[in-house]
């Protein structure tokens, strides 16, 4: 139970060093957000990349093991659960769009949601990769919080899932303008669906810069693809 882990966290004898690393996490995050704004929201400077790199180098510099850090940062990791549940709110706000568009939006999302993990899995299947790596690859196009839970449910690795998902989102957001030009995708609704389905939340922030319609469809696609994938994969592989 996460609540028991939380209680033992506060009883821990190493509370002091825990609080230091908790503080480091918060400060690094604040810094990474500043960098992201300064880089004018370029996906390459996504806050998660900057803060993770900073913390990893600090851990190496101070010779702190990754497990120790995980223990220290437990309260932050715990909040991921409630924050993921809050995803119901953007979904609820886009429900009218979903009902209005019906299968015209559901089918492309389902198609992209099946295609992306299948292609990703095929491209590592032939390299004799271990099964947990293959399972992790299946969740790479859904939103990080759901991807981590789903990866664990089907025998993948949650931390790897987080990293794969983030990099996928960054690649998607960077290549989106080129892909849209080559495929002559000029419909903003379609662009939103592609960004949301393939590049999840990182793609959605790209969609926000295109237009409001595009952002709405991206948000809807993120929620839809995330939920359908998180239901289907455990049914298929767990």
């Amino acid at each position: 139970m996460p609540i028991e882990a939380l209680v033992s966290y506060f009883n821990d004898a190493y509370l002091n060093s825990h609080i230091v690393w908790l503080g480091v996490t918060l400060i690094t995050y604040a810094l990474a957000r500043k960098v992201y704004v300064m880089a004018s929201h370029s996906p390459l400077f996504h806050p998660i990349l900057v803060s993770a790199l900073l913390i990893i180098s600090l851990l190496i510099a101070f010779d702190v093991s990754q497990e120790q850090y995980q223990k220290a940062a437990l309260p932050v990791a715990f909040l991921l659960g409630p924050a993921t549940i809050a995803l119901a709110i953007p979904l609820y706000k886009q429900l009218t769009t979903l009902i209005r568009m019906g299968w015209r939006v559901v089918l492309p999302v389902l198609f992209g949601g099946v295609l992306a993990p299948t292609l990703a899995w095929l491209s590592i299947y032939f390299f004799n990769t271990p099964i947990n790596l293959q399972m992790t690859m299946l969740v790479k196009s859904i939103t990080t919080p759901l991807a981590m839970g789903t990866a664990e449910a089907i025998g993948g690795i949650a931390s790897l899932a987080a990293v794969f998902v983030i990099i996928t989102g960054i690649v998607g957001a960077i290549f989106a303008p080129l892909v849209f030009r080559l495929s002559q995708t000029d419909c903003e609704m379609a662009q939103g669906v592609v960004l949301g389905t393939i590049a999840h939340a990182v793609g959605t922030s790209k969609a926000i810069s295109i237009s409001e319609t595009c952002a709405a469809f991206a948000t809807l696609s993120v929620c839809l693809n995330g939920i359908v994938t998180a239901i289907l994969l455990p049914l298929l592989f767990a």
Partner: protein
Amino acid sequence: MTTPKKVAITLSPYIKKVRSRLFLLARCLLGFALLIGIFLVSDFITQALEITLPPALLGIFILLLICLIFRQVPSIILLAAKPLLTHMVLFFIPATVGIMAYATLILEFPLALFLAIVVSTVVSMFISALISQRFLGSNTLNRAGEKSDAD
């Protein structure tokens, strides 16, 4: 006689402001507690019934159901959810740092991972763009067609 009244009038907006701020904070904390409660309940249910779904997914459905029953997002939950959603990235920093433990696994398959994460993402984006354009791009054409029919 009138001066003390004036003092009372100038003080009251300040008190009101502090009160409303405290009230807002209390409502925010209540919403926060509700979200954590939903998460713990869904975590308990998925473990007790041995469902293999990620627990937060069940939580999403519970919150969605609550929104549908109230026909709007309850303001308490909205208040607590906003900071959680904007700072979502913070909450998966610990997991991302956990990648350190898998450095050797990643370095073992650099080409495979590049193909899977970079190349396959761009390819599936291209194909799904073609499909989405067919489904949604034709929507405007349909509408135009309907219009011309109506005319």
